[in-house]
Protein backbone atom coordinates (compact mmCIF):
# COMPACT_ATOMS: atom_id res chain seq x y z
CA UNK A 1 0.00 0.00 0.00
CA UNK A 2 2.39 2.70 -1.15
CA UNK A 3 -0.16 4.78 -3.07
CA UNK A 4 -3.20 5.00 -0.78
CA UNK A 5 -4.71 8.16 -2.31
CA UNK A 6 -4.83 6.91 -5.88
CA UNK A 7 -5.18 3.15 -5.40
CA UNK A 8 -8.69 3.25 -6.87
CA UNK A 9 -7.87 5.66 -9.67
CA UNK A 10 -7.11 3.90 -12.93
CA UNK A 11 -7.02 5.26 -16.45
CA UNK A 12 -9.46 2.60 -17.68
CA UNK A 13 -12.31 3.41 -15.31
CA UNK A 14 -13.18 6.87 -14.17
CA UNK A 15 -15.39 6.58 -11.14
CA UNK A 16 -15.04 4.68 -7.90
CA UNK A 17 -18.44 3.61 -6.60
CA UNK A 18 -19.14 2.77 -2.98
CA UNK A 19 -18.78 -0.93 -3.76
CA UNK A 20 -15.45 -0.37 -5.54
CA UNK A 21 -14.23 1.80 -2.71
CA UNK A 22 -15.08 -0.81 -0.10
CA UNK A 23 -13.37 -3.54 -2.09
CA UNK A 24 -10.03 -1.90 -1.38
CA UNK A 25 -10.78 -1.32 2.30
CA UNK A 26 -12.81 1.86 2.05
CA UNK A 27 -14.72 3.03 5.15
CA UNK A 28 -12.76 0.73 7.47
CA UNK A 29 -11.02 3.80 8.89
CA UNK A 30 -14.41 5.35 9.57
CA UNK A 31 -15.65 2.14 11.19
CA UNK A 32 -12.63 1.99 13.46
CA UNK A 33 -12.92 5.67 14.43
CA UNK A 34 -16.63 5.56 15.21
CA UNK A 35 -16.74 2.19 16.96
CA UNK A 36 -13.34 1.89 18.67
CA UNK A 37 -11.99 5.40 19.27
CA UNK A 38 -13.04 8.43 21.27
CA UNK A 39 -13.11 11.71 19.31
CA UNK A 40 -9.97 13.00 21.08
CA UNK A 41 -8.16 9.77 20.27
CA UNK A 42 -8.90 10.26 16.58
CA UNK A 43 -7.53 13.79 16.77
CA UNK A 44 -4.44 12.58 18.59
CA UNK A 45 -3.74 9.94 15.94
CA UNK A 46 -4.01 12.47 13.12
CA UNK A 47 -1.75 14.81 15.08
CA UNK A 48 0.81 12.06 15.68
CA UNK A 49 0.69 11.02 12.03
CA UNK A 50 2.26 14.36 11.12
CA UNK A 51 -0.31 15.03 8.39
CA UNK A 52 0.01 18.62 7.20
CA UNK A 53 -2.46 20.62 5.14
CA UNK A 54 -2.21 19.85 1.45
CA UNK A 55 -3.93 23.04 0.33
CA UNK A 56 -0.72 25.01 0.46
CA UNK A 57 -0.14 26.28 3.98
CA UNK A 58 1.03 23.00 5.49
CA UNK A 59 -0.51 23.47 8.95
CA UNK A 60 -0.76 20.36 11.13
CA UNK A 61 -4.21 18.85 10.56
CA UNK A 62 -4.46 17.17 13.95
CA UNK A 63 -3.34 20.34 15.71
CA UNK A 64 -6.08 22.29 13.91
CA UNK A 65 -8.69 19.76 15.06
CA UNK A 66 -7.38 19.86 18.62
CA UNK A 67 -7.94 23.64 18.80
CA UNK A 68 -11.72 23.21 18.57
CA UNK A 69 -13.10 23.53 22.13
CA UNK A 70 -14.03 20.18 23.64
CA UNK A 71 -17.76 19.62 23.69
CA UNK A 72 -18.71 19.81 27.33
CA UNK A 73 -21.94 20.89 29.00
CA UNK A 74 -20.41 24.06 30.44
CA UNK A 75 -19.56 25.44 26.98
CA UNK A 76 -21.72 28.39 25.92
CA UNK A 77 -24.58 27.51 23.57
CA UNK A 78 -23.02 28.98 20.46
CA UNK A 79 -20.05 26.66 20.80
CA UNK A 80 -22.14 23.52 21.20
CA UNK A 81 -22.78 23.47 17.48
CA UNK A 82 -19.68 23.15 15.33
CA UNK A 83 -19.08 22.68 11.64
CA UNK A 84 -16.68 20.77 9.45
CA UNK A 85 -15.84 22.07 5.97
CA UNK A 86 -13.98 20.45 3.09
CA UNK A 87 -12.31 23.05 0.91
CA UNK A 88 -12.83 21.90 -2.68
CA UNK A 89 -12.27 25.34 -4.15
CA UNK A 90 -9.09 24.43 -6.03
CA UNK A 91 -8.19 27.47 -8.12
CA UNK A 92 -4.48 28.01 -7.64
CA UNK A 93 -3.06 28.48 -11.15
CA UNK A 94 -1.11 25.33 -11.93
CA UNK A 95 -2.98 23.12 -9.44
CA UNK A 96 -5.03 20.22 -10.74
CA UNK A 97 -4.85 17.64 -7.97
CA UNK A 98 -8.09 17.97 -5.99
CA UNK A 99 -10.19 17.70 -9.16
CA UNK A 100 -8.81 14.19 -9.74
CA UNK A 101 -9.65 13.10 -6.19
CA UNK A 102 -13.14 14.62 -6.35
CA UNK A 103 -14.04 13.20 -9.73
CA UNK A 104 -12.54 9.76 -9.41
CA UNK A 105 -12.74 8.71 -5.77
CA UNK A 106 -15.26 10.92 -3.93
CA UNK A 107 -15.87 8.35 -1.16
CA UNK A 108 -12.29 8.77 0.01
CA UNK A 109 -13.10 12.42 0.71
CA UNK A 110 -16.45 11.57 2.32
CA UNK A 111 -14.79 9.08 4.66
CA UNK A 112 -12.24 11.71 5.68
CA UNK A 113 -14.99 14.22 6.38
CA UNK A 114 -16.96 11.74 8.51
CA UNK A 115 -13.88 10.97 10.60
CA UNK A 116 -12.94 14.66 10.92
CA UNK A 117 -16.47 15.67 11.85
CA UNK A 118 -16.57 12.88 14.45
CA UNK A 119 -13.26 14.08 15.91
CA UNK A 120 -14.55 17.61 16.47
CA UNK A 121 -18.14 16.44 17.10
CA UNK A 122 -19.70 18.34 14.21
CA UNK A 123 -23.09 17.14 13.00
CA UNK A 124 -23.13 19.13 9.80
CA UNK A 125 -20.36 19.31 7.23
CA UNK A 126 -20.09 21.15 3.94
CA UNK A 127 -18.11 20.46 0.83
CA UNK A 128 -17.37 23.88 -0.61
CA UNK A 129 -16.75 23.33 -4.31
CA UNK A 130 -15.90 25.78 -7.04
CA UNK A 131 -18.71 26.16 -9.57
CA UNK A 132 -16.58 25.20 -12.56
CA UNK A 133 -16.05 21.66 -11.27
CA UNK A 134 -19.29 20.40 -12.82
CA UNK A 135 -18.32 16.74 -13.20
CA UNK A 136 -16.89 16.65 -9.68
CA UNK A 137 -20.15 18.07 -8.30
CA UNK A 138 -22.14 15.37 -10.09
CA UNK A 139 -19.91 12.57 -8.81
CA UNK A 140 -19.79 13.89 -5.24
CA UNK A 141 -23.58 14.26 -5.20
CA UNK A 142 -23.94 10.66 -6.34
CA UNK A 143 -21.42 9.41 -3.79
CA UNK A 144 -23.18 11.29 -0.98
CA UNK A 145 -26.43 9.55 -1.94
CA UNK A 146 -24.68 6.18 -1.88
CA UNK A 147 -23.17 6.89 1.53
CA UNK A 148 -26.53 8.04 2.88
CA UNK A 149 -28.28 4.93 1.54
CA UNK A 150 -25.62 2.80 3.21
CA UNK A 151 -26.21 4.51 6.57
CA UNK A 152 -22.81 6.18 6.63
CA UNK A 153 -24.54 9.54 6.82
CA UNK A 154 -27.62 10.42 8.83
CA UNK A 155 -28.46 9.45 12.38
CA UNK A 156 -26.68 6.91 14.57
CA UNK A 157 -23.98 6.10 12.04
CA UNK A 158 -22.90 2.45 12.50
CA UNK A 159 -25.11 2.25 15.58
CA UNK A 160 -23.11 4.95 17.36
CA UNK A 161 -24.43 8.14 18.93
CA UNK A 162 -22.89 10.13 16.13
CA UNK A 163 -25.10 11.92 13.56
CA UNK A 164 -23.80 13.66 10.47
CA UNK A 165 -25.12 15.30 7.33
CA UNK A 166 -22.80 16.41 4.54
CA UNK A 167 -24.05 19.08 2.14
CA UNK A 168 -22.44 19.99 -1.15
CA UNK A 169 -22.22 23.75 -1.66
CA UNK A 170 -21.42 24.79 -5.22
CA UNK A 171 -19.86 28.20 -5.36
CA UNK A 172 -20.05 30.78 -8.13
CA UNK A 173 -16.40 31.51 -8.15
CA UNK A 174 -13.44 33.72 -7.25
CA UNK A 175 -10.03 32.48 -6.18
CA UNK A 176 -10.41 34.20 -2.82
CA UNK A 177 -13.18 31.75 -1.85
CA UNK A 178 -10.45 29.18 -1.22
CA UNK A 179 -9.01 31.31 1.59
CA UNK A 180 -10.26 29.82 4.85
CA UNK A 181 -12.15 32.77 6.31
CA UNK A 182 -13.30 34.12 2.91
CA UNK A 183 -14.72 30.67 2.29
CA UNK A 184 -16.73 30.95 5.50
CA UNK A 185 -18.15 34.29 4.38
CA UNK A 186 -19.05 32.76 1.00
CA UNK A 187 -20.82 29.88 2.77
CA UNK A 188 -22.77 32.45 4.75
CA UNK A 189 -23.95 33.99 1.47
CA UNK A 190 -21.76 37.06 1.81
CA UNK A 191 -19.13 38.67 -0.36
CA UNK A 192 -16.17 36.40 -0.07
CA UNK A 193 -13.73 38.66 1.75
CA UNK A 194 -11.36 37.32 4.41
CA UNK A 195 -11.97 37.95 8.08
CA UNK A 196 -9.54 39.52 10.52
CA UNK A 197 -7.90 36.99 12.81
CA UNK A 198 -8.10 36.32 15.71
CA UNK A 199 -10.55 34.80 16.33
CA UNK A 200 -9.54 31.81 14.26
CA UNK A 201 -12.16 29.66 12.59
CA UNK A 202 -11.58 26.81 15.06
CA UNK A 203 -12.91 29.11 17.78
CA UNK A 204 -15.38 31.22 15.81
CA UNK A 205 -16.03 30.23 12.22
CA UNK A 206 -19.20 29.55 10.31
CA UNK A 207 -22.03 31.62 11.87
CA UNK A 208 -19.65 32.26 14.76
CA UNK A 209 -19.32 28.63 15.71
CA UNK A 210 -16.16 26.51 15.97
CA UNK A 211 -15.30 25.37 12.44
CA UNK A 212 -12.56 23.30 10.85
CA UNK A 213 -11.72 23.84 7.20
CA UNK A 214 -9.50 21.23 5.54
CA UNK A 215 -8.33 20.79 1.96
CA UNK A 216 -9.67 17.85 -0.09
CA UNK A 217 -6.33 16.06 -0.46
CA UNK A 218 -5.64 16.46 3.26
CA UNK A 219 -8.94 14.77 4.11
CA UNK A 220 -8.32 11.95 1.65
CA UNK A 221 -5.39 10.86 3.86
CA UNK A 222 -7.44 10.59 7.03
CA UNK A 223 -9.24 7.27 6.52
CA UNK A 224 -5.99 5.53 5.62
CA UNK A 225 -4.14 6.90 8.63
CA UNK A 226 -6.84 5.68 11.03
CA UNK A 227 -7.06 2.29 9.35
CA UNK A 228 -3.38 1.49 8.68
CA UNK A 229 -1.93 3.39 11.61
CA UNK A 230 0.71 5.99 12.26
CA UNK A 231 3.75 3.76 11.79
CA UNK A 232 2.58 2.82 8.34
CA UNK A 233 1.98 6.49 7.49
CA UNK A 234 5.43 7.47 8.73
CA UNK A 235 7.00 4.73 6.64
CA UNK A 236 5.63 6.35 3.48
CA UNK A 237 7.64 9.59 3.62
CA UNK A 238 11.27 9.82 2.51
CA UNK A 239 12.23 12.76 4.73
CA UNK A 240 10.89 14.73 7.66
CA UNK A 241 7.34 14.84 6.30
CA UNK A 242 5.13 11.80 6.21
CA UNK A 243 2.76 10.10 3.84
CA UNK A 244 2.34 10.58 0.13
CA UNK A 245 1.28 13.55 -1.92
CA UNK A 246 -0.05 14.19 -5.37
CA UNK A 247 2.71 15.91 -7.31
CA UNK A 248 2.07 17.38 -10.72
CA UNK A 249 3.97 19.01 -13.54
CA UNK A 250 2.60 21.33 -16.20
CA UNK A 251 4.32 23.31 -18.94
CA UNK A 252 6.65 22.22 -21.75
CA UNK A 253 7.63 18.79 -20.48
CA UNK A 254 7.21 15.54 -22.39
CA UNK A 255 4.55 14.07 -20.14
CA UNK A 256 2.68 16.62 -18.05
CA UNK A 257 0.67 14.87 -15.37
CA UNK A 258 -0.03 13.99 -11.78
CA UNK A 259 1.55 11.25 -9.68
CA UNK A 260 1.17 10.10 -6.10
CA UNK A 261 4.67 9.90 -4.65
CA UNK A 262 6.22 9.86 -1.18
CA UNK A 263 6.63 13.19 0.59
CA UNK A 264 10.27 14.12 0.18
CA UNK A 265 10.56 12.95 -3.43
CA UNK A 266 13.34 14.95 -5.14
CA UNK A 267 12.08 17.49 -7.68
CA UNK A 268 14.48 16.06 -10.27
CA UNK A 269 12.76 12.70 -10.10
CA UNK A 270 9.34 14.30 -10.60
CA UNK A 271 10.42 16.49 -13.51
CA UNK A 272 12.86 14.20 -15.29
CA UNK A 273 11.49 10.72 -14.62
CA UNK A 274 7.76 11.14 -14.20
CA UNK A 275 7.23 14.14 -16.46
CA UNK A 276 9.86 12.81 -18.88
CA UNK A 277 12.01 15.94 -18.90
CA UNK A 278 11.69 18.93 -21.21
CA UNK A 279 10.13 18.75 -24.64
CA UNK A 280 12.74 18.53 -27.41
CA UNK A 281 14.08 21.95 -28.24
CA UNK A 282 13.34 23.43 -24.81
CA UNK A 283 15.59 23.92 -21.81
CA UNK A 284 14.53 24.19 -18.17
CA UNK A 285 14.90 27.79 -17.03
CA UNK A 286 13.14 27.56 -13.68
CA UNK A 287 9.95 26.38 -12.01
CA UNK A 288 7.32 27.25 -9.46
CA UNK A 289 7.18 24.27 -7.08
CA UNK A 290 3.62 24.62 -5.82
CA UNK A 291 1.44 26.83 -7.98
CA UNK A 292 1.44 30.49 -8.99
CA UNK A 293 1.85 31.83 -5.46
CA UNK A 294 5.20 30.20 -4.79
CA UNK A 295 8.69 31.55 -5.48
CA UNK A 296 10.60 30.49 -8.59
CA UNK A 297 13.37 27.98 -8.12
CA UNK A 298 16.15 27.26 -10.64
CA UNK A 299 17.60 24.13 -12.28
CA UNK A 300 20.24 24.15 -9.51
CA UNK A 301 17.39 23.38 -7.09
CA UNK A 302 16.35 20.17 -8.86
CA UNK A 303 17.77 18.04 -6.08
CA UNK A 304 15.59 19.75 -3.48
CA UNK A 305 13.14 17.31 -1.92
CA UNK A 306 9.42 18.04 -1.91
CA UNK A 307 9.10 18.43 1.86
CA UNK A 308 7.52 21.52 3.40
CA UNK A 309 10.59 22.69 5.28
CA UNK A 310 13.12 21.64 2.65
CA UNK A 311 11.42 23.63 -0.13
CA UNK A 312 11.12 26.55 2.30
CA UNK A 313 14.86 26.41 3.00
CA UNK A 314 15.50 26.53 -0.73
CA UNK A 315 13.56 29.81 -0.82
CA UNK A 316 10.11 28.78 -1.96
CA UNK A 317 7.09 26.84 -0.74
CA UNK A 318 5.75 23.35 -1.36
CA UNK A 319 2.33 24.97 -1.88
CA UNK A 320 0.01 22.65 -3.75
CA UNK A 321 2.88 20.44 -4.93
CA UNK A 322 1.97 21.02 -8.56
CA UNK A 323 5.00 22.39 -10.41
CA UNK A 324 4.79 24.92 -13.24
CA UNK A 325 7.76 24.75 -15.57
CA UNK A 326 9.39 27.86 -17.07
CA UNK A 327 11.18 26.97 -20.29
CA UNK A 328 13.86 29.00 -22.09
CA UNK A 329 11.46 30.13 -24.84
CA UNK A 330 8.95 31.68 -22.45
CA UNK A 331 9.62 35.21 -21.22
CA UNK A 332 9.72 35.18 -17.42
CA UNK A 333 8.57 38.82 -17.26
CA UNK A 334 5.47 38.06 -19.32
CA UNK A 335 4.87 34.94 -17.27
CA UNK A 336 4.97 36.99 -14.08
CA UNK A 337 2.66 39.56 -15.68
CA UNK A 338 0.13 36.83 -16.46
CA UNK A 339 0.17 35.70 -12.83
CA UNK A 340 -0.06 39.24 -11.44
CA UNK A 341 -3.04 39.93 -13.71
CA UNK A 342 -4.66 36.86 -12.21
CA UNK A 343 -4.00 38.02 -8.66
CA UNK A 344 -5.08 41.62 -9.39
CA UNK A 345 -8.34 40.37 -10.89
CA UNK A 346 -9.00 37.90 -8.08
CA UNK A 347 -8.16 40.28 -5.23
CA UNK A 348 -11.35 40.78 -3.26
CA UNK A 349 -10.54 44.45 -2.68
CA UNK A 350 -11.00 44.24 1.06
CA UNK A 351 -7.63 45.66 2.08
CA UNK A 352 -5.72 48.47 0.43
CA UNK A 353 -2.26 46.99 -0.19
CA UNK A 354 -3.75 44.17 -2.23
CA UNK A 355 -6.52 46.15 -3.94
CA UNK A 356 -4.22 48.97 -5.08
CA UNK A 357 -0.83 47.28 -5.05
CA UNK A 358 -1.64 44.46 -7.44
CA UNK A 359 -3.04 46.66 -10.25
CA UNK A 360 0.00 48.92 -9.76
CA UNK A 361 2.24 45.89 -10.14
CA UNK A 362 0.43 44.93 -13.34
CA UNK A 363 0.75 48.46 -14.78
CA UNK A 364 4.47 48.58 -14.06
CA UNK A 365 5.05 45.20 -15.67
CA UNK A 366 2.97 46.16 -18.71
CA UNK A 367 4.95 49.38 -19.10
CA UNK A 368 8.23 47.51 -18.84
CA UNK A 369 7.17 44.98 -21.47
CA UNK A 370 5.93 47.79 -23.73
CA UNK A 371 9.40 49.34 -23.62
CA UNK A 372 8.26 52.24 -21.47
CA UNK A 373 9.85 51.12 -18.23
CA UNK A 374 12.60 52.80 -16.24
CA UNK A 375 15.23 51.20 -14.04
CA UNK A 376 13.57 52.79 -10.99
CA UNK A 377 10.49 50.71 -11.77
CA UNK A 378 12.42 47.65 -10.67
CA UNK A 379 12.99 49.29 -7.30
CA UNK A 380 9.29 50.15 -7.11
CA UNK A 381 8.41 46.53 -7.88
CA UNK A 382 10.84 45.36 -5.20
CA UNK A 383 9.19 47.82 -2.81
CA UNK A 384 5.79 46.42 -3.65
CA UNK A 385 6.95 42.90 -2.87
CA UNK A 386 7.64 44.17 0.65
CA UNK A 387 4.51 46.32 1.04
CA UNK A 388 2.28 43.52 -0.17
CA UNK A 389 4.22 40.92 1.78
CA UNK A 390 3.32 39.04 4.96
CA UNK A 391 1.89 41.12 7.78
CA UNK A 392 0.37 43.91 5.71
CA UNK A 393 -2.82 42.23 4.50
CA UNK A 394 -5.81 40.32 5.88
CA UNK A 395 -4.94 37.15 4.01
CA UNK A 396 -2.22 35.40 2.03
CA UNK A 397 -3.39 36.39 -1.46
CA UNK A 398 -1.11 39.41 -1.90
CA UNK A 399 1.91 37.88 -0.15
CA UNK A 400 1.43 34.83 -2.41
CA UNK A 401 1.22 37.07 -5.45
CA UNK A 402 4.55 38.64 -4.51
CA UNK A 403 6.41 35.33 -4.32
CA UNK A 404 6.84 34.73 -8.07
CA UNK A 405 7.57 38.45 -8.60
CA UNK A 406 10.24 38.76 -5.94
CA UNK A 407 12.03 35.62 -7.08
CA UNK A 408 11.78 36.62 -10.76
CA UNK A 409 13.37 39.99 -9.91
CA UNK A 410 16.17 38.09 -8.23
CA UNK A 411 16.74 35.31 -10.76
CA UNK A 412 15.68 36.86 -14.07
CA UNK A 413 16.63 40.50 -13.52
CA UNK A 414 18.44 40.72 -16.85
CA UNK A 415 15.16 39.92 -18.60
CA UNK A 416 13.47 42.89 -16.93
CA UNK A 417 16.45 45.12 -17.68
CA UNK A 418 16.62 44.14 -21.32
CA UNK A 419 13.10 45.46 -21.84
CA UNK A 420 14.05 48.70 -20.12
CA UNK A 421 17.28 49.37 -22.01
CA UNK A 422 15.49 48.52 -25.22
CA UNK A 423 17.36 45.58 -26.71
CA UNK A 424 14.68 43.03 -26.08
CA UNK A 425 14.63 42.27 -29.83
CA UNK A 426 17.52 39.95 -29.14
CA UNK A 427 15.21 37.78 -27.11
CA UNK A 428 13.94 34.71 -28.84
CA UNK A 429 10.80 34.29 -26.82
CA UNK A 430 7.71 33.10 -28.52
Amino acid at each position, binding site marked *: MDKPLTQNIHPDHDFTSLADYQKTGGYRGMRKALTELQPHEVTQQIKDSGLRGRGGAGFSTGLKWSLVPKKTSDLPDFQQTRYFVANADEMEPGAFKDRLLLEQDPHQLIEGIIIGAYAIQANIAYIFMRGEYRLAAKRVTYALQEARAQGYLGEHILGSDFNLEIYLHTS*AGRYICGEETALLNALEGKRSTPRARPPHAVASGLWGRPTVVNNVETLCNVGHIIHYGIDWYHSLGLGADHGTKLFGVSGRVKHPGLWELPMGTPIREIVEEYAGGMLDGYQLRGFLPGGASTDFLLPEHLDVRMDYDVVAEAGSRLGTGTLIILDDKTCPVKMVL*NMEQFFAQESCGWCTPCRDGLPWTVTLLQDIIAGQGRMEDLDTLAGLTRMLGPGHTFCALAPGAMEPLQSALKFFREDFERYIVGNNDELEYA
Partner: protein
Amino acid sequence: MKQTAEKSTSEDLTALEIQEINAIINHYEDHTSVAIEALNIVQKHRRWISDSTLKAVADFLQISLAHLESVATFDNLIYRQPVGNTVIHYCNSVTCWMLGSEQIREHLCQRLHVEPGETSADGQYTILPIVCLGACDRAPAALVGDELKIDLNTDAIDEILKR
Protein backbone atom coordinates in the same frame (compact mmCIF):
# COMPACT_ATOMS: atom_id res chain seq x y z
CA MET B 1 -46.08 55.04 -5.58
CA LYS B 2 -42.69 53.56 -4.88
CA GLN B 3 -44.17 50.24 -3.97
CA THR B 4 -46.16 50.05 -7.20
CA ALA B 5 -43.11 50.92 -9.23
CA GLU B 6 -41.10 48.19 -7.54
CA LYS B 7 -43.85 45.71 -8.00
CA SER B 8 -44.15 46.40 -11.72
CA THR B 9 -40.45 45.57 -12.28
CA SER B 10 -40.42 42.46 -10.14
CA GLU B 11 -41.08 39.03 -11.51
CA ASP B 12 -41.88 35.90 -9.60
CA LEU B 13 -39.80 32.80 -9.27
CA THR B 14 -41.23 29.74 -10.96
CA ALA B 15 -42.61 26.84 -8.93
CA LEU B 16 -39.63 24.72 -10.00
CA GLU B 17 -37.13 27.37 -8.95
CA ILE B 18 -38.83 27.73 -5.59
CA GLN B 19 -38.89 23.97 -5.15
CA GLU B 20 -35.16 23.70 -5.89
CA ILE B 21 -34.27 26.55 -3.54
CA ASN B 22 -36.49 25.14 -0.79
CA ALA B 23 -34.75 21.78 -1.12
CA ILE B 24 -31.49 23.30 0.13
CA ILE B 25 -32.62 26.22 2.26
CA ASN B 26 -32.52 24.15 5.44
CA HIS B 27 -28.89 23.23 4.87
CA TYR B 28 -27.97 26.58 6.39
CA GLU B 29 -28.59 28.50 9.59
CA ASP B 30 -30.23 31.42 7.80
CA HIS B 31 -31.67 32.52 4.45
CA THR B 32 -28.78 34.80 3.54
CA SER B 33 -26.54 31.77 3.29
CA VAL B 34 -28.50 30.22 0.46
CA ALA B 35 -28.08 33.39 -1.65
CA ILE B 36 -25.31 32.15 -3.94
CA GLU B 37 -26.86 28.76 -4.55
CA ALA B 38 -30.25 30.38 -5.16
CA LEU B 39 -28.65 32.60 -7.79
CA ASN B 40 -27.01 29.52 -9.33
CA ILE B 41 -30.35 27.73 -9.43
CA VAL B 42 -32.25 30.61 -10.99
CA GLN B 43 -29.47 31.29 -13.47
CA LYS B 44 -29.54 27.65 -14.57
CA HIS B 45 -33.15 28.21 -15.69
CA ARG B 46 -32.84 31.74 -17.05
CA ARG B 47 -29.20 31.78 -18.23
CA TRP B 48 -28.51 35.14 -16.60
CA ILE B 49 -29.61 37.29 -13.66
CA SER B 50 -31.53 40.39 -14.68
CA ASP B 51 -32.32 43.20 -12.22
CA SER B 52 -35.87 41.93 -11.86
CA THR B 53 -34.71 38.35 -11.32
CA LEU B 54 -32.31 39.56 -8.68
CA LYS B 55 -35.15 41.33 -6.93
CA ALA B 56 -37.34 38.26 -7.12
CA VAL B 57 -34.62 36.17 -5.45
CA ALA B 58 -34.02 38.81 -2.77
CA ASP B 59 -37.76 39.05 -2.06
CA PHE B 60 -38.13 35.30 -1.88
CA LEU B 61 -35.20 34.95 0.55
CA GLN B 62 -36.30 38.06 2.43
CA ILE B 63 -32.82 39.53 2.24
CA SER B 64 -31.79 42.98 1.07
CA LEU B 65 -31.47 43.58 -2.64
CA ALA B 66 -28.24 45.50 -2.06
CA HIS B 67 -26.74 42.52 -0.26
CA LEU B 68 -27.68 40.12 -3.03
CA GLU B 69 -26.33 42.51 -5.64
CA SER B 70 -23.04 42.72 -3.74
CA VAL B 71 -22.72 38.95 -3.98
CA ALA B 72 -23.95 38.67 -7.56
CA THR B 73 -21.43 41.19 -8.84
CA PHE B 74 -18.58 39.66 -6.84
CA ASP B 75 -18.73 36.13 -8.16
CA ASN B 76 -17.22 35.14 -11.51
CA LEU B 77 -19.99 32.78 -12.58
CA ILE B 78 -23.07 34.92 -11.99
CA TYR B 79 -23.94 36.65 -15.24
CA ARG B 80 -25.53 40.06 -14.79
CA GLN B 81 -25.89 40.55 -18.54
CA PRO B 82 -27.57 38.27 -21.08
CA VAL B 83 -25.41 35.41 -22.36
CA GLY B 84 -25.77 33.00 -25.28
CA ASN B 85 -27.02 29.41 -25.20
CA THR B 86 -23.53 28.22 -24.37
CA VAL B 87 -20.90 30.18 -22.49
CA ILE B 88 -17.34 29.34 -23.48
CA HIS B 89 -14.96 30.11 -20.63
CA TYR B 90 -11.41 29.86 -21.95
CA CYS B 91 -8.75 29.53 -19.27
CA ASN B 92 -6.17 32.33 -19.34
CA SER B 93 -4.13 31.36 -16.27
CA VAL B 94 -0.44 30.69 -16.38
CA THR B 95 0.01 27.22 -17.88
CA CYS B 96 -2.75 27.68 -20.45
CA TRP B 97 -1.25 31.08 -21.27
CA MET B 98 2.14 29.47 -21.86
CA LEU B 99 0.67 26.80 -24.06
CA GLY B 100 -1.55 28.91 -26.27
CA SER B 101 -4.65 30.31 -24.57
CA GLU B 102 -4.18 33.62 -26.42
CA GLN B 103 -4.43 31.81 -29.76
CA ILE B 104 -7.52 30.01 -28.47
CA ARG B 105 -9.09 33.33 -27.54
CA GLU B 106 -8.19 34.92 -30.89
CA HIS B 107 -9.56 32.00 -32.84
CA LEU B 108 -12.81 31.94 -30.87
CA CYS B 109 -13.29 35.68 -31.30
CA GLN B 110 -12.45 35.55 -34.99
CA ARG B 111 -14.78 32.64 -35.70
CA LEU B 112 -17.68 34.20 -33.80
CA HIS B 113 -16.96 37.86 -34.68
CA VAL B 114 -16.98 38.88 -31.03
CA GLU B 115 -14.68 40.24 -28.35
CA PRO B 116 -14.40 38.53 -24.95
CA GLY B 117 -17.56 39.33 -22.99
CA GLU B 118 -19.73 39.42 -26.11
CA THR B 119 -22.30 37.05 -27.56
CA SER B 120 -22.33 35.85 -31.16
CA ALA B 121 -24.96 37.42 -33.40
CA ASP B 122 -26.97 34.18 -33.54
CA GLY B 123 -27.14 34.08 -29.75
CA GLN B 124 -25.35 30.73 -29.59
CA TYR B 125 -22.10 31.54 -27.80
CA THR B 126 -20.73 33.97 -25.26
CA ILE B 127 -16.96 34.14 -24.85
CA LEU B 128 -15.51 34.85 -21.41
CA PRO B 129 -12.13 34.27 -19.79
CA ILE B 130 -11.89 32.16 -16.66
CA VAL B 131 -9.19 31.47 -14.09
CA CYS B 132 -7.32 28.16 -13.88
CA LEU B 133 -9.71 25.27 -14.53
CA GLY B 134 -7.49 22.66 -12.89
CA ALA B 135 -6.54 20.95 -16.12
CA CYS B 136 -2.99 22.28 -16.45
CA ASP B 137 -1.57 18.92 -17.54
CA ARG B 138 -3.88 19.04 -20.57
CA ALA B 139 -3.59 22.76 -21.35
CA PRO B 140 -5.00 24.80 -22.93
CA ALA B 141 -8.43 24.17 -21.46
CA ALA B 142 -11.89 25.70 -21.60
CA LEU B 143 -15.25 25.14 -19.98
CA VAL B 144 -17.83 24.87 -22.75
CA GLY B 145 -21.24 24.97 -21.14
CA ASP B 146 -20.91 22.31 -18.45
CA GLU B 147 -18.15 20.42 -20.19
CA LEU B 148 -14.43 20.69 -19.60
CA LYS B 149 -12.50 20.67 -22.90
CA ILE B 150 -8.79 19.95 -22.85
CA ASP B 151 -5.78 19.80 -25.21
CA LEU B 152 -7.33 22.63 -27.21
CA ASN B 153 -6.05 23.94 -30.50
CA THR B 154 -7.75 25.78 -33.35
CA ASP B 155 -9.00 22.50 -34.90
CA ALA B 156 -10.57 21.46 -31.62
CA ILE B 157 -12.28 24.85 -31.38
CA ASP B 158 -13.66 24.43 -34.90
CA GLU B 159 -14.98 21.03 -33.88
CA ILE B 160 -16.68 22.47 -30.79
CA LEU B 161 -18.30 25.28 -32.78
CA LYS B 162 -19.56 22.85 -35.43
CA ARG B 163 -22.03 21.22 -33.05
